[in-house]
């Protein structure tokens, strides 16, 4: 069983994040860069499948050199090896371009199951699993809250607003996970020590046979034209309680259509 987990490094969503005003791409320098939070669930799920079925978990990352921190975290959680696609020409790529890079990398790897987080907390485009399924010609099941592999079939409970759909697909397949699927483990110290000995293969666009002019900000299918910070929170409404505070409170909630 070969499992590939797509892992992206993003600025910590719990901190103040910004775009780089010089080209409107995500500001990574100076940010607290971490593994995309939802990807940790995909990593955990890959490890769980591996522990149950045997096999190998490979991490695949497209990102700048500093993304090795994210790779190392995945390896210290227990992934076996990693492929890191790094090339200056990739900077500013849109989701469609990135999917071409990831698909080319996957085509050079062996995979039965590809796992991804359902979205990334920086771009929040959430289309990568679908784009990859299309490019690779394999089934996609999105938003898994439960996953099991039986023989050459993956069975998934796909989370919906009201419950779930039980779906299955033949392998190889790509499945994206939600944060309800498991509780990601913390890397143990042994895992941290072992991670430094695990192989990380670096690939350039040339290694993947991709023409650099087809990716990157200049030829992106979408790019950010302008951005603005979130407006500061409004003053709010102050209600002086003159015995009718509860009444006014409910009126306010009703006026906002909250109740």
């Amino acid at each position, binding site marked *: 069983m070969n499992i590939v987990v797509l892992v992206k490094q993003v600025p910590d969503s719990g901190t103040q994040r910004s775009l780089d005003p010089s080209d409107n791409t995500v500001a990574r320098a100076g940010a607290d860069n971490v593994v995309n939070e939802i990807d940790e669930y995909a990593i955990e799920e890959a490890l769980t499948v591996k522990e149950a079925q045997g096999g190998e978990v490979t991490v695949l990352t497209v990102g700048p050199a500093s993304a090795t921190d994210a790779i*190392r975290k995945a390896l210290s959680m227990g992934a076996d090896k990693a492929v890191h696609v790094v090339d200056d020409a990739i900077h500013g790529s849109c989701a469609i371009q990135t999917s071409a890079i990831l698909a080319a990398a996957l085509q050079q790897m062996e995979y039965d199951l590809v796992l991804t987080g359902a979205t990334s907390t920086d771009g929040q485009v959430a289309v990568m699993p679908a784009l990859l399924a299309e490019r690779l010609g394999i089934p996609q099941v999105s938003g898994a809250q439960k996953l099991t592999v039986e023989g050459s079939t993956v069975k998934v409970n796909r989370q919906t607003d009201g419950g779930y759909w039980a779906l299955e697909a033949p392998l190889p397949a790509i499945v994206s996970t939600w944060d309800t699927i498991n509780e990601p483990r*913390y890397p*143990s*110290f*042994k*895992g*941290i*020590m072992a*991670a430094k000995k695990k192989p990380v293969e670096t690939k350039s666009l040339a290694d993947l046979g991709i023409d650099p002019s087809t990716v990157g900000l200049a030829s992106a299918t979408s790019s950010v034209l302008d951005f603005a910070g979130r407006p500061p929170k409004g003053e709010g409404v102050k209600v002086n309680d003159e015995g009718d505070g509860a009444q006014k409170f409910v009126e306010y909630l009703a006026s906002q259509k909250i109740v």
Partner: protein
Amino acid sequence: MLDYRLDEETEALRTTVREFAREVVAPQIGEFYERDEFPTAIVRQMGELGLFGLPFPEEYGGGGGTYFDLCVALEELGRVDSSVAITLEAGVSLGAMPIFRFGSEEQKQRWLPRLCSGQALAAFGLTEAGGGSDAGATRTTARLDGGEWVLNGSKSFITNSGTDLTELVTVTAVTGTRADGSKEISAIAVPSGTPGFVVGKRYSKVGWNASDTRELSFTDVHVPAENLVGERGRGYAQFLSILDEGRIAISALSVGLAQGCVDESVRYAGEREAFGRPIGANQAIQFMIADMEVRASTARLAYYRAAERMLRGEPFKREASIAKLYSSEVAMDNARAATQVHGGYGFMNEYPVGRFYRDAKILEIGEGTSEVQRMLIARDLGVG
């Protein structure tokens, strides 16, 4: 050269323990603290992270890291809660370390793997009602009878001695009289549950309330002769040598508490409003917090320095005492200041700083009081 940047692995460990402390420990520890309850499940998770095996070699189930790795983990835990941090510190540097340093190969094989994995905890009993600083005043006795040691006496304030995970307490006991008339003190491992070994009730403590501290009594307790840890007659001296490194660990824990005070105060100063603006807009509050940060970061340098000498195999006794003395006093100062920044809420147990305030004082007492540290530093300087 001068370089206090951490290795990649130590930095990754710091990040992991920080996340664990914030996500797992912080949300629930207050309730354990208020109930005076030992957080067994959290300690087990710390075991799964490999924290109890950090400084021990892999052949005994350890993580193959360094004593400094342990210190960094203690700092990050201490930043959120001291009870779990002292559970780790005592488990490793008082519980497992004597076995690792002085135990026989057979003792190491038998006990270390379970201790390193955190499945089991060990304690060390030196202090007695009649003497902590003056540990040579030990009254507990052990005499050889056939192939067994027979112990009688009691121990006070012993950390980790009565948890669900505790399997072993190593105690110092008088095993005879030397030629010069002084006491011969040795260390003997007593498994939990040995008949005659009674673990008392938990003390009602001012702080460290989620850590396990108990009084122990020994009435004709029989253990095999091979439970002697280290050389006969060297128990006290050997324990003192372990205390030297333990002081670096306590220093790291103290720095954690001091830094936790900064974290909480920075947060609170931005949130709390008085007279129509955040209290952090007042220079009086800013300066208090700046001074707290200065103390925490200089104390960190003190323990880095001691650990650096220790890892290089250089004498580090004085540096360890300096680090322990300074950082425990800094922890106390920062706890006082952080409580002040929090006003009345700082006096409430529901805020972490209330816990920090209660937990800080023992740092100036345990594993060698501030007075004892000053005595050691002065002695090392050749004074007195």
